[in-house]
């Protein structure tokens, strides 16, 4: 797996999606499983360390969605890794709500499913794809160089699913410091377009 460059790997994985759509190819699905199940499990374990059963369940759920929704994935316009991330994020938040982790009447699927499909939204322009590839490079190289204190808050927020308040408590930092570290990291990685 590591012997291939990541661009080749992505092409191979995208091709697997296409094979699922065209003829329900189980081998293609198996390749996707081999690549993504360990990552999805790691994503689940980041939030719930040691909870291997939850991690299995999340991996299953995400990959079933991949099987069912392969047709709505637009390989030309979006990054497959990002698509998988949004599916995993949505499944994870949904899982925790179903299991009573959130004391709230709000249904997260109504919020996040809106933004689940990486198919071109009404605002998506073709030239953004070039930007997308450049962004991917920026983020990859930028993450490696990010000061530890900034990557630490990104890990808390994105992978461990901690709110700013929880992050502030756990790292014993003022809330404002947590927010400004996230902001600085985003700026350094050049993630956002200016408004």
């Amino acid at each position, binding site marked *: 797996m590591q012997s291939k460059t990541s661009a080749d790997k992505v092409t191979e994985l995208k091709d697997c999606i296409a094979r699922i*759509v065209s*003829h329900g190819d*189980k081998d293609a*699905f198996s390749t996707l*499983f*081999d690549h993504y*199940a*360990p*990552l999805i499990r*790691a*994503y689940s374990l*980041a939030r719930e360390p040691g909870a291997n059963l939850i*991690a*299995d369940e999340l*991996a*299953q759920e995400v*990959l079933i969605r991949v*099987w*069912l*929704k392969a047709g*709505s994935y637009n390989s030309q316009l979006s*990054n497959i*890794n*990002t698509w998988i*991330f*949004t599916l995993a*994020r949505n499944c994870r938040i949904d899982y925790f709500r179903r299991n009573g982790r*959130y004391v*709230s009447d*709000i249904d997260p699927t*109504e*919020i996040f499913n*809106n*933004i689940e*499909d990486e*198919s071109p*939204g*009404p*605002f998506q322009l073709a030239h953004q794809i070039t930007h*997308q590839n450049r962004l*991917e490079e920026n*983020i990859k190289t930028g*993450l490696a160089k990010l000061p530890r204190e900034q990557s630490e808050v*990104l*890990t808390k*927020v*994105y*992978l*461990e*699913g*901690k709110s*700013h308040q929880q992050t502030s408590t756990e790292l014993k930092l003022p809330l404002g410091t947590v*927010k*400004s570290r996230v*902001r600085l990291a*985003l*700026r350094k990685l050049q*993630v*956002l*377009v200016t408004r």
Partner: protein
Amino acid sequence: MNTLKNHPEDELLAAYAAASLPLSQALCISVHLEHCSICTQNLRRLNQLGSELMQNLQPAPPSPELKHSLLNQIDQMSVNEAANETVTSQTNTSNQPLPRCLHQFIKTGYKDIPWKRLSRDIHSHELCRGQNNAKVELLRIKPGGTAGTHTHMGDEYTVILEGSFSDESGLYRQGDFLVRDSRHKHTPVATIDKECICLTVTEAPIQLTGFFGLLLNPLIRRSYA
């Protein structure tokens, strides 16, 4: 569509992309996103950051049984099922006047809501409570009406659904998103052309500071309890 001036802060949008934001706040941002092309674009970019962070995790391979059980499960599903899924997920619902993320609370329109009178100028309708008992409600301010000068004990998140209002800091229109906290004292006034409907999330009861505020405070506290 691109004229909005009031957006969620960068770190708030990032927390939304990470789904680590309290759901009540995520609801407000979700409404804003339906109106804002720039934040939608930024959200995609923040999703890409999430995906890179996920790729950097140490992989945690499952046991071989997991794959077998999953392959068995998809054997039970027909390819047709996948085709159906495609159709439903591409159904366009964007022409409906209500924000999609509010469909879980409002089925028809703002007119059919059992509004509760809060003052001469304001009606409210509580949708639900979020984490930490945050109050999620709709406010309807009549044309030219005021919500009263108030400060907040906790943060207040507001997104405008219809109409517009102004306060000391500016004019807010449909889709605009703003956060007010205990440092702000503000007096929102709806513009006179039409009523203003907002979605607000309040983490703790707001504190009215004007003369009428003093009269209203006990009422508000009671309605919050």
